[in-house]
């Protein structure tokens, strides 16, 4: 099912996207966003949670915001939502300041581990939030029913939220975040607490939002999700931006070697030098060699009549990149700065 609201279903997507895109203007701009918290018994000290965060997210991008616990990801999102106030700097969403209440008409937000009024049913919760966008009764009912179905909560629509599991609450949270068809969607750990089916559904929703031209900004610990979904990612460590770029650019920074997958059946055997370096699984061998030794190794394999199944470069994964930045935050390998992109 394509993600669209009942009111605009059937409308040409290209036209919708053109209308909703402000030409040349980033969807999200972080401008030296800084947040300090007082520290110590007399609150004389200061701990810097965000340090001059500056980057942009383009319209229509799916942007992953990565970082270890305490990196400042949630603090960043709270600043944008107006839940806390920056010590210095600011942010803009589609040209509007985060201080402008009208900015909130264009955004959707799923907090980390969302809590809702547990005396409400899922239907009542969505209806409550829909009221803030001025929809009439019929449209509210239509939207609520549509998004309950979209997150597979229709059978539980009239159950009080206090009886919901963590995964069901997360799904209700996603429904309220996209209920009003926002241009920019902020999701704080959207996969948290979800089973594999739920994670798949959230991924589908994110991709459908992207298809519709919406901007999705989400924080996550699950790097495979980021690698799979994101046009670009940023890595935040200790409140500082350590790296930003597309997952493809990040993982193609360097080739660490080559991996050969081959099959050698009896009576043939791998040469002794190769056998020591190979990982065996039945008749199959996985051999990792430096790039310079590739052709020599292939020649040796031909000599023993090995069947070559694949030859692939060994590249660092997004996880390798992430771990390197976390462990050595000052040795940032910035694939692409926001400024260069602009």
């Amino acid at each position, binding site marked *: 099912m394509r993600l669209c609201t009942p009111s605009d279903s059937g409308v040409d997507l290209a036209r919708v996207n053109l209308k909703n895109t402000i030409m040349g203007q980033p969807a999200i701009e972080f401008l030296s966003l800084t947040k300090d918290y007082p520290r110590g018994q007399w609150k004389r000290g200061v701990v810097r949670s965000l340090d001059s965060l500056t980057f942009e997210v383009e319209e229509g991008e799916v942007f992953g915001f990565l970082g270890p616990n305490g990196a400042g990801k949630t603090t960043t999102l709270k600043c944008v939502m107006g839940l806390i106030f920056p010590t210095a700097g600011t942010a803009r969403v589609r040209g509007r300041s985060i201080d402008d209440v009208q900015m909130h008409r264009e955004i959707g937000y799923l907090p980390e581990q*969302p809590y809702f009024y547990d005396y409400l049913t899922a239907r009542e919760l969505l209806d409550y939030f829909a009221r803030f966008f001025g929809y009439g009764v019929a449209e509210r009912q239509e939207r609520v029913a549509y998004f309950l179905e979209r997150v597979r909560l229709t059978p539980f629509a009239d159950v009080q939220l206090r009886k919901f599991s963590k995964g069901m609450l997360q799904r209700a949270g996603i429904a309220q975040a996209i209920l009003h068809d926002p241009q920019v969607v902020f999701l704080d750990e959207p996969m948290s607490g979800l089973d594999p089916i739920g994670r798949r559904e959230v991924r589908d929703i994110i991709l459908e939002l992207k298809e519709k031209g919406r901007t999705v900004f989400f924080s996550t610990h699950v790097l495979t999700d980021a690698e799979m979904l994101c046009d670009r990612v940023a890595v935040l460590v200790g409140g500082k931006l350590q790296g930003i770029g597309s997952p493809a650019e990040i993982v193609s920074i360097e080739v660490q070697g080559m991996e050969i997958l081959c099959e050698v059946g009896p009576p043939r055997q791998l040469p002794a030098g190769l056998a020591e370096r190979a990982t065996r699984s039945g008749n199959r061998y996985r051999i990792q060699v430096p790039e310079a030794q590739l052709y020599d190794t292939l020649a040796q394999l031909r000599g023993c009549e090995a069947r070559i199944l694949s030859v692939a470069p060994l590249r660092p994964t997004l996880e390798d990149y992430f771990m390197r930045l976390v462990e050595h935050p000052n040795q940032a390998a910035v694939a692409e700065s926001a400024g260069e992109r602009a």
Partner: protein
Amino acid sequence: MAGTVAINTFREAVRDRVLYNLVLFALAMMAAAVLVGQVTIGIERQVILNLGLTAISLIGTAMAVFIGVRLVYKEIEKRTLYTLLAKPVRRWEFLVGKFAGLVLTLAVNTALMTLGLAAALFYVTRGFGRADVSIAVAVYFILLGLALITALALFFSCFPTPILSTLLTLGLFVAGQFSSALREYGKLAHTRALAVILGAIYYLLPNFHNFNAITAAAHGDVIPGALILHNTLYAVLYIAVVLLGASAIFANVNLK
């Protein structure tokens, strides 16, 4: 926006079991009023009204304080406010909505308890007279007082601990019952400075004494229209100032 928040606040209170316990308590008080009325001779009406209106006032005050001080605190503590403030809702609209929602709850409960009192009175006196109009005015004054307490509780609800908020609200409520005495002490003060200070405190403290018309209603006295107008204007202005103060503070609060 504030209206939507208010309706949700009302719905929360209606679904809260504590509310029903208080209503049950009120009904028990009404039953007690009937019993006491039966063992008194000639002053049944007076006893029933004194007991009943006092019960309405006390129960309403308890609700206004204990629910009021947690109105904002609970939303912050449970983080329900996060999703709400991400919507196009200004913080002051949220506060006004919470205030209106609790006042609506108190109004409905006060109305229900007043119906119980009216039924008890009708059971004993077998009819209503013109003097009973003052009962409605006394209830109206109780409601004005409850709205004022709610505003104060909401103001203190913007601070971090509900225990401190409860103590401050109750402290102001008690002090407001005796604020008139401060002015009298001021007149007797030996120094002009002390008189000015006591006078200033008198004007700063909420004057809850003026909202007490229980004795007048019990005796069937006519409550002057000027007092009704004065109390209404006083409550509206005081509530507006308190809510403005609460909004100014809450506008700069960093949520956890």
